[in-house]
């Protein structure tokens, strides 16, 4: 026995190995909170910088959600203070509906409390731990409780000190008392260790900057550990349309999800369950499904077996459903993106495009929005200066968003970044994307964002999503190209004019010497000729540019057409091959 254990220890390297019985016992004793404690990596809480940004995300997206649901234009203030090395206090204050004494515990002191199963709507979503997770993390790293002040429209505000019982996964309210203060909203103060504030692309400041861009109806105020205050003003005066919760489309469902839904349904037969709980399941579709399954559709859905559920999912795949409704999506919109980018990025040129919603994998509605900002404060600083002009050299900045949430991590593994990198920028007058003063905004919204992992920081490349992104970027890039070309033309014209007039003065001196005519008179005549020439050139260039642009447009159309045909051909080719086999 002793020997055996020893070997196992060596193999495992993680300390004593537990038997199955011991494991089961431990699992019972340990609550979800303990599980969380042991699995920080899986919950996206790795890295001191990333953890801090994730905490800010959890609080801020809670605030945004709460405000929007109550029809309040959000105003959120975030303050991060450094207490000592790798020890920080975070304060987040909003003007939302606040929490009542009754809801306080569940909202901030119980893990997994609010999470509903598979809501088919466009949501910000947690990136891992939620606000209760933050309470938990605070306790774990500092042993301290969090402080909350909440005021609702109906009740006078109260102050609470609370934490979480990690074994029971229950809130632990230490102190709660009413305070005499005019306040509506929620303010949370929590302390964390093993985190680090650092400026840069993955910092809380950058997270908030991008959040402000994607949420132009929110005012966000940030005070960093050095006391520096940044205010992102609101550029939209109304709350965006609320996304509508839609029934799941049969093409976008798994066996496990189907079974869970079957347990909760009001339907008494499988046929009525499918018809009422799913989108686009009409009589015709139900009939088609019934032909492809081996059991009776009149069966009670609550008694459906795993194998039966598998059969239904299989039949879903071959059934022709109408594509899911795209009505539930709520895009930011071109005007709002334009206004917020103008306010925050202050570019010289900007092109914004919101595509029409469409569907990927046959079952999920999605939509993409892109914007390309050029010049001004676009792009990120390289820290280097151009030797000739003395101006700072900018590098391209790609801002990724999923359902209005900025994605700051895992850029390399994200389809949104790949779509940007994959565009042939040279065609649009950008010789080297990496060194271009560009900010590229890419937003995907969907009832179901196809994240690559539990960290929810990267989107996987679905064919239809990639195609939509490509078309959107192409259109936006073309527009930017036109603006840049126009600017270059203007600059060139100005330079030419300067050049000609400069030399005209010299020629006038020489001609005066040679002909005896008055210098001023000669110069005047030269000026007239220069201006006449430039006007003529401008007219010709504009005509040429228009022609080129029309040609490019025609070319793009043709290419899109070709690609469609190519896909069809490819598919039919595969079919033919299948036939031969």
């Amino acid at each position, binding site marked *: 026995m002793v020997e055996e254990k020893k070997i196992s220890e060596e193999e495992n390297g993680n300390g004593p190995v537990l038997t199955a019985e011991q494991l089961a016992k431990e699992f019972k004793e340990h609550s979800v909170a303990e599980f969380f404690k042991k699995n920080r990596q899986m919950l996206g809480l790795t890295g001191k910088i990333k953890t801090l940004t994730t905490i800010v995300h959890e609080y801020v997206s809670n605030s945004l959600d709460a405000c929007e649901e109550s029809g309040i234009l959000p105003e959120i203030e975030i303050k991060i203070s450094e207490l000592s090395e790798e020890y920080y206090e975070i304060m987040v204050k909003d003007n939302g509906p606040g929490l009542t004494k009754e809801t306080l515990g569940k909202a901030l002191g119980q893990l997994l409390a609010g999470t509903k199963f598979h809501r088919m709507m466009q949501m910000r979503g947690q990136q891992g731990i939620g606000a209760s997770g933050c309470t938990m993390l605070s306790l774990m790293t500092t042993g301290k409780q969090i402080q909350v002040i909440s005021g609702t429209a109906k009740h006078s505000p109260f102050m609470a000190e609370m934490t979480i019982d990690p074994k029971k996964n229950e809130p632990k309210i230490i102190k709660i008392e009413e305070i005499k203060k005019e306040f509506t909203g929620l303010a949370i103060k929590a302390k964390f260790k093993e985190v680090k504030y650092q400026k840069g692309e993955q910092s809380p400041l950058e997270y908030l900057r991008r959040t402000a861009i994607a949420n132009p109806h929110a005012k966000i105020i940030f005070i960093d550990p050095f006391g520096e205050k940044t205010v992102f003003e609101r550029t939209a005066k109304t709350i965006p349309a609320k996304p509508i919760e839609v029934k799941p489309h049969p093409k976008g469902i798994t066996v496990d999800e189907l079974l869970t839904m079957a347990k909760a349904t009001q339907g008494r037969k499988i046929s009525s369950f499918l018809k009422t709980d799913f989108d686009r399941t009409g009589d015709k579709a139900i009939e088609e499904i019934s032909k492809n399954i081996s059991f009776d559709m009149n069966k009670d859905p609550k008694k459906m077996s795993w194998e039966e559920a598998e059969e239904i999912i299989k039949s879903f795949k071959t059934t022709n459903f109408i594509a899911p409704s795209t009505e539930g999506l709520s895009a930011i919109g071109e005007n709002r993106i334009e206004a917020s980018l103008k306010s925050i990025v202050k570019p010289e040129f900007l092109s914004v495009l919101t595509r029409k919603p469409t569907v990927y994998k046959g079952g999920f509605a999605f939509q993409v929005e892109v914007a390309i900002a050029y010049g001004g404060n676009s792009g990120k600083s390289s820290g280097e200066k151009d030797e000739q002009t003395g101006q700072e050299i900018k590098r391209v900045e790609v801002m990724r968003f999923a359902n209005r949430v900025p994605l700051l991590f895992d850029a390399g593994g994200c389809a949104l970044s790949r779509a940007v990198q994959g565009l042939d920028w040279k065609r649009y007058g950008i010789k080297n994307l990496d060194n271009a003063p560009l900010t590229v905004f890419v937003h995907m919204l969907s009832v179901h964002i196809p994240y690559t992992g539990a960290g929810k920081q990267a989107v996987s490349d679905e064919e239809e999503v990639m195609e939509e992104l490509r078309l959107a970027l192409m259109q936006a890039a073309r527009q930017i190209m036109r603006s840049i070309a126009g600017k270059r033309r203007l600059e060139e014209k100005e330079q030419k004019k300067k050049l*000609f007039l*400069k*030399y005209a003065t*010299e*020629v006038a001196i*020489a001609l005066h010497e*040679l*002909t005896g005519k008055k210098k001023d008179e000669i110069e005047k005549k*030269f000026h007239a000729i220069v201006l006449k*020439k430039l006007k003529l050139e401008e007219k010709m260039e504009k005509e040429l540019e228009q022609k080129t642009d029309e040609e490019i447009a025609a070319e793009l159309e043709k290419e899109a057409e070709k690609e469609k045909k190519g896909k069809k051909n490819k598919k039919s080719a595969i079919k033919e091959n299948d036939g031969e086999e």
Partner: protein
Amino acid sequence: MADDVKAKDAEVIKRLEGLGKQVFDQIDAGKEPSIELPVRTLGNIFFDRKSKTIKLGDKTSQRQFLNIAHTRKFMQTTLVASEIKKIINQNATTSIRDLYYALKHTIADTNENSFNDQSESDPLIEDIESSLDLLREELHLAASSKGVIVGNMKIKDGKDTIDLTRMGSGGWGIPSNVEPERIEIKDLDAEYILFIEKDAVWKRFNEDAFWKKNRCVIITGRGQPSRAERRLVQRLNNEYNLPVFALMDADPWGMYIYSVIKQGSISLSYSEEKLATPDTKYIGLTVKDVETFKIPKEVTIKLNHLDVKRLNEMKSYEWFKAKEWQEEFALMKEKAIKLELEALSKKGIRFITETYLPEKIKSKDFLP
């Protein structure tokens, strides 16, 4: 003579003013100003069989003020023309380097110079010469000259008379203007002119008093000769009917210099009738000499790729089409060697003056 000069100057000024007036008339009529100039490239020259010199063809190009690529040159061209007018009016003569400095200034309200380098103003002088059909000397401009000459003759330069038999080891420095109005040749007693490519070799000939023993005039342009040396040789040839022999390195560069003396150069093709001496004959060196005079192999030099390239270009020139030249080129290519004049010293320090040259002249072993 003074009246001649004055009349000539008046004519030159008229032409320069004409250039200015032409531009003024264009802008006065609201037209885009441009100056028409003869094209001075290989594509627009031809070998005139009658005069046996290189001549300029009739292709022209327009230098346009409103063309970004031309505008600076256009400005500079008018500045050069007006500056030359000033010089003539002051009755002065300046070097082309003086002219460059006179023209160089900072353009008002900029940090740009009207001219950055003499290489910018020199070709514009040639543009003006060729488009107005005037000689450099008529523009009161002097190219720097570097050549020297000695021989049994006298030169009257203004009030001074110079005896070219008494010039010591240095020889008489040829002035930049050798036009008859300025330089008079007197008491010439010589049978031929020997044009030597290199100064060091010329010095050997002068030290050995070759010109005295052989009744000739020896001249060098110290490499590529300038206009003055070529003009003087032409005058000696024309006015005294003296044959001209060229003594150059046996390499493509020496042979090209010979062709410039004889037929003229591409860039000055517009005035070669006043500069070239078609009677010139090539006395040496040749690759053939290596065999004839049993010159040791070790003093020859291998042709490099640039030599071969130049050789191939020259082979196709109209004025090198003679059978003898084509044979010489073929031999040079075949042997892949070249030979410097100094290499003959291997056979003895006076071999070149006492053996090589007299034998060549005696046997009339020339290339045309």
